[in-house]
């Protein structure tokens, strides 16, 4: 599976090549074309990877440089990670197209694309990697590019302040995960996710070469510390209360296409890594794992934090005057719901959370991009001053409405089905308080979204609109594509994909066996 491993490499190589090309070629249009073609290529690479993993029907291990698991870094792609990676690459293609409309002939464009491609490389690396330390590297790649993009308008006080806040605590969170990785190495003797997972399950432990490492120290306490440190990092990345404080500053300060990526895709990396660590690596929710005893504590903490994030953020949405801050708080709310789904520990909960990650990403990217058009023509982010773009451009109007309705959860759109799946997952385990949280936060958030819909669709301010900014395929095509995506995200269409993805996460046996196989094959073939 060279294609999977090549995707981040292609992105990083292009990201470094772009500033060099800029030395010779000064035309900004060239860079729009380069970025679009590279993201499109990477999308097809991830799609082929997804198709391949689906056909094989089990995780695929790619050994970097041919080194086997405990010695070298491996990429281990299963249907969960390839689904998210393909979806991410798909949305980034459209955001890149939208960027070419948004940036126009801005002279910072080459650096913007350089960072954007680095960001995509970090995301894909996070999804594909099968190595705990490589995950740290990829988190930092993602982090540094995000800080840079938030500070893209480097002469704006708001952007620089938001970026230093984000970067400072991001660096601290990165160090926290580094400590967790070091403790993992000290307790398990290796850093490959599949092999750490094998050691966590007594049924697989005899097959690993590291059995005697369990003889000293209390490994359950060590895992509790590892999980505490790494979940702190991941909830920071995902913007879960109390680590959400940077998000409503950083997401609005970035250029609008970047807000769409940060709110729609980057936060998912936090949810993905939490799920991977909890379900696959340590098997906290797996009754056969040595760490099953930690599940009540983690379940309580994560669902409480998720539920509080959802309620708190939906209330905060109501008091915002800045449209981008309002949408940023909506991100905190949805990530809260995703974390409550992940904290249940049941296949239905994971399935619903995965589904909600997909619908939220599409809805949020669409909302930021369509509201971005309104901000662009109104030249302000104050909600009452937004012009009624929906009256002049039906596509933008439909996009704002569709995104809001999907995020609230109205029936024909994807958001309804994912919220319904969450509701069913809560009912299945009898967590009625979470049902109340889901309904209350959606209801309160509905009022927040109406604040956005009203001036942009039904407002009376249509004067002084620069109508030439309201057209153009590079703005309309992404909006139309994501509206279509919200309709396609229907259980009839994607139920099978989400089902196999969540099964691959919850039942980690094949993941472990493939990693062990890669190790044993190396030993038996005599190196």
């Amino acid at each position, binding site marked *: 599976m060279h294609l999977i491993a090549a995707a981040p490499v292609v992105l990083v190589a292009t990201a470094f090549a772009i500033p060099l090309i800029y030395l010779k070629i000064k035309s900004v249009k060239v860079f729009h074309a380069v970025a679009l073609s590279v993201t499109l290529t990477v999308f097809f690479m991830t799609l082929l990877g997804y198709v391949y993993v689906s056909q094989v029907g089990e995780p695929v291990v790619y050994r970097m440089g041919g080194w086997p698991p405990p010695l070298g870094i491996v990429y281990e792609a299963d249907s969960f990670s390839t689904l998210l990676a393909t979806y991410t690459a798909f949305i980034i293609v459209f955001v890149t197209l939208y960027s070419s409309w948004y940036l126009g002939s801005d002279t910072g464009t080459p650096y913007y694309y350089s960072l954007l491609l680095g960001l995509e490389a970090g995301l894909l690396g996070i999804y594909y990697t099968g190595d705990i*330390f490589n995950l740290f590297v990829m988190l930092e790649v993602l982090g540094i590019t995000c800080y840079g993009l938030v500070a893209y308008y480097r002469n704006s006080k708001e952007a*620089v302040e938001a970026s230093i806040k984000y970067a400072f605590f991001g660096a*601290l969170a990165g160090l926290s995960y580094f400590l967790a990785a070091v403790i993992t190495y000290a307790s398990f003797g290796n850093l490959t996710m599949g092999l750490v997972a094998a050691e966590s399950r007594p049924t697989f432990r005899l097959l690993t070469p590291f059995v005697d490492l369990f003889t000293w120290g209390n490994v359950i306490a060590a895992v509790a510390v590892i999980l505490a440190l790494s979940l702190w990092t991941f909830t920071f990345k995902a913007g879960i209360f109390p680590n959400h*404080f940077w998000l409503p500053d950083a997401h609005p300060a970035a250029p609008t296409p970047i807000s769409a990526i940060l709110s729609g895709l980057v936060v998912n990396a936090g949810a993905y890594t939490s799920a991977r660590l909890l379900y696959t690596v340590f098997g906290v929710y797996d009754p056969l794992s040595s760490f099953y005893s930690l599940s009540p504590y983690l379940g309580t903490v994560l669902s409480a934090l998720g539920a509080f994030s959802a309620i708190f953020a939906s209330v905060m949405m109501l008091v915002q005057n800045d449209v981008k801050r309002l949408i940023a708080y909506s991100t905190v709310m949805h990530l809260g719901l995703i974390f409550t789904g992940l904290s249940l520990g049941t296949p239905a909960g994971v399935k619903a959370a995965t589904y909600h990650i997909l619908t939220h990403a599409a809805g949020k990217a669409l909302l930021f991009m369509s509201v971005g058009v309104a901000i662009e023509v109104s030249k302000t982010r104050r909600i009452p001053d937004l012009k009624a773009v929906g009256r002049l451009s039906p596509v933008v109007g439909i996009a704002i409405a569709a995104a809001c309705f999907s995020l609230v959860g109205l029936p024909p759109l994807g958001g309804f089905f994912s919220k319904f799946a969450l509701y069913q997952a809560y009912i299945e385990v009898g967590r009625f308080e979470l049902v109340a949280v889901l309904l209350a936060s959606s209801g309160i958030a509905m009022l927040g979204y109406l604040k956005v819909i009203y001036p942009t669709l039904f407002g009376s301010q249509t004067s002084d609109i620069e109508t030439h900014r309201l057209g153009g395929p590079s703005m309309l095509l992404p909006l139309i594509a994501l509206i279509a995506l919200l309709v396609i995200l229907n259980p009839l269409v994607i139920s099978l994909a989400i089902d196999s993805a969540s099964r691959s996460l919850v039942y980690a046996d094949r993941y472990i066996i493939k990693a062990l196989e890669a190790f044993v094959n190396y030993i038996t073939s005599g190196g």
Partner: protein
Amino acid sequence: MDTNFLERFLVIFALYNLLATIGVSIYGIVARPHITKKIIALTILGDALNVLAIFLGFKPSSIPPVLLKTDTISEGDIIKFATSAVDPLPQALVLTAIVIGLAVNLFLIFLALQIFRLYGTLDSRKIRELRG
């Protein structure tokens, strides 16, 4: 006082020293208002964690992880090597972490410079455009 005791004392002393450094640097990050001091504290925290990682691979009276004997290697040689050599992997991890830390620090320092240009101060109590 034999050398063994001295070595063990030094190892424990270094460990507590590291933990104290981590505590002081977290205090610096949280409590100092000046952004440059916060960045310095963050650097100290990063370095302390790196040394902690090296420390985990260290064994008292150990040898470098290089097997110098190349012609005839017996099983005993390998066992002796495996039990007395330090673990090289944390050192490789730390090398990566140092490079990443360099990038993050450079970026933070650039942002601090930009903040000083825009606000005329680096006192984080006076930089309050955003409410969080």
